[in-house]
């Protein structure tokens, strides 16, 4: 177990791989995690993203050792740490409210892990000094924690976690307590430090912007399961399920019916919803949509109903040149100006839906539209993403794949 003990702090960092294999956890009868499989590559930062209760915090705590899995294993570079107590795992962790020791100074906080590893005093003080330099708090060593601002405490918490050369760094909503401006600065700071040191990291967050800014890959979770793993733009551009599509940014959801399959082409007709209830009666509209796909998903039969998602920025106001573009006509219901973009809500009577269209704000382009204006909205088939139902089993293999959605595959 020596390799998992906090290593000597000097020397190049050897990045390690973290694997969760079939991890399940139950609490008093309710399932918190079901068969979670995840591989974090050496030096990678991944985010566990999802709403509260999705299991992301449970996952982090299992990796840390505050709880043990009922099934499955947690391994670092192949070594099984699933049932080791937290103080024997050689990890680093930044807590949600920093959890800095209030009775110790900044220097004592940072040096705590080294002290627990019984390093000699002079080694500890030189390492602490190195860390204070790295986080730019050189003169703060003897200060009391209470005298620091939120951002400064953040940096101390980070320094404390990484000074021991942990094999994996865990971050539990590290930026939640900071206000917006500070948060963006700290996002870059943490990312910069993590990359330069090459520490494999797992971050828990409910803020999708934060996840997309900082992560190499994002793990979207819901109800104890992983819905999708991928790089930020993959998960954003090709969401796998409706939940993922709506959790990351906004998505326009259209209901369609599969008319026929011809080779690798799926012909859909867009359905029209009559009424605004949850399950209104649908009828066929006049619009057709053709998607290319490598595989026809098993759950989709001819005549079956599916949902597709389109991002607001992929919808255009005005006609498009492409031949297979879909054009819809509607009326502007609402216009919101957000500085960098105009956001419109447009009601389309032919499909009984209200679409959100975002357009980059550029004063040189055409004038903005007002509520009541008639407009055309168009998009081409590339922009549409076929969504899978939440309960469909993933076709991905067990260990470490990104689960690619089933539309056009773009090169990663």
């Amino acid at each position: 177990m020596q390799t998992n003990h906090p290593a000597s702090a000097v020397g190049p960092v050897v990045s390690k791989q973290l694997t969760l294999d079939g991890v399940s956890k139950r609490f008093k009868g309710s399932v918190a995690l079901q068969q979670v499989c995840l591989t974090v590559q050496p030096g990678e930062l991944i985010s566990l993203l999802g709403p509260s209760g999705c299991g992301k915090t449970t996952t982090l705590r299992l990796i840390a050792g505050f709880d043990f899995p009922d099934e499955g294993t947690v391994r670092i570079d192949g070594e099984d740490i699933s049932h080791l107590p937290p103080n024997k795992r050689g990890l680093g962790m930044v807590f949600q409210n920093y959890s800095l020791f209030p009775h110790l100074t900044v220097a004592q906080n940072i040096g705590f892990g080294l002290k627990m590893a019984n390093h000699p005093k002079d080694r500890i003080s030189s390492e602490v000094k190195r860390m204070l330099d790295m986080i730019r708090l050189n003169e703060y060593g003897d200060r009391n924690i209470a005298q620091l601002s939120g951002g400064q405490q953040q940096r101390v918490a980070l320094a404390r976690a990484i000074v021991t050369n942990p094999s994996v760094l865990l971050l539990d909503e590290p930026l939640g307590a900071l206000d917006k401006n500070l948060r963006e600065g700290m996002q870059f700071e943490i990312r910069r430090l993590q990359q330069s040191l090459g520490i494999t990291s797992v971050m828990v967050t409910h803020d999708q912007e934060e996840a997309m800014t900082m992560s190499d890959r994002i793990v979207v979770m819901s109800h104890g399961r992983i819905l999708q793993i991928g790089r930020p733009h993959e998960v954003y551009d090709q969401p796998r399920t409706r939940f993922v599509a709506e959790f990351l940014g906004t998505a326009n959801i259209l209901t369609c019916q599969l008319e026929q399959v011809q080779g690798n082409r799926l012909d859909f007709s867009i359905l029209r919803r009559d009424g605004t209830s949850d399950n209104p009666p649908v009828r066929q509209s006049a619009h057709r949509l053709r998607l290319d796909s490598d595989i026809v998903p098993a759950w989709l039969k001819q005549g079956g109903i599916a949902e597709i998602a389109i991002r607001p920025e992929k919808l255009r106001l005005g006609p498009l040149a492409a031949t297979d573009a879909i054009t819809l006509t509607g009326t502007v219901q609402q216009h919101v100006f957000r500085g960098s973009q105009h956001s419109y809500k447009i009601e389309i009577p032919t499909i009984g839906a209200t679409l959100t269209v975002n357009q980059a704000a550029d004063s040189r382009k055409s004038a903005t539209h007002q509520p009541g204006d008639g407009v055309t909205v168009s998009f081409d088939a590339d922009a549409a993403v076929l969504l899978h139902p939440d309960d469909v089993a993933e076709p991905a293999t067990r260990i470490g794949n990104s689960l690619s959605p089933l539309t056009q595959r773009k090169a990663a």
Partner: protein
Amino acid sequence: MSTLLLRWHPGRWGWHLLTLYTALFFVFVFAPIAVVVAVSFTAEQGVQFPFHGTSLQWYVRLWEYKPFVDSLLTSLYLAIASAAAAILLAVPAALYLGRSTGAVATVIASFLLAPIAIPALVVGMSLLYFLSAIGIGVSFTALFITHTIVSISYVMRTTLSVYRSVSQSLGEAAAVLGASSWRTFIHVTLPLIAPGIFAGSLFAILVSLDNLALSYFFGTANVTTLPVVMLSYLQNQFDPAIAAISTVQMAISIALLLIVEKTYGLRALTTQ
């Protein structure tokens, strides 16, 4: 008349009345104490207030009257020893209860806090019979056990309260940084709950010093506590020496309070 009363607005003099009342109240509270301190310095032979002439004769008398000095030392020793024993028992209990939930934990907590609620007379009497029955008769050991029972409750009460306010994630942070349970306790938990332990111990010591009802049943010729001696002196001799010993006892209590204040601050005491 009632409508008049309903719309009565006392205005400024109403508040002045309340201020006067409160001032008188505090005079009421301190009068007997001040009187006793004053009387301890009387040059006269009897207890009388007001009096003429001051002298230290009664403090000298304390030295001479052996039971006073002996019982004071016994009481101090007893208070400190029982507080120490209470700490050894109560702190682990607080550590357990502070992170436990559920009905069992609540019951245990109530049980451990019960000794303060039960009249000391009943506790003392019951323990006298019990300890005699098991062979520890009237002795310092018996006194020690009796006072420890009550001290445990005081120490546990404040320690538990402070410990509950210590975030659990601090212990988790220490664990991730490599600290074993024991080292987490020594380096993180203990420093943070120390104010609670001190406050509770102070309470325990002060209560023990003054606890007549609890100690009454265990007095012997050799081993007895100050309150018991004071009571019998009051009933038999009634002279200003009582005032002197009371003042000394008060001075000791104040000194202890100041020690706690200097080391940990009094805020811990007010968090109840």
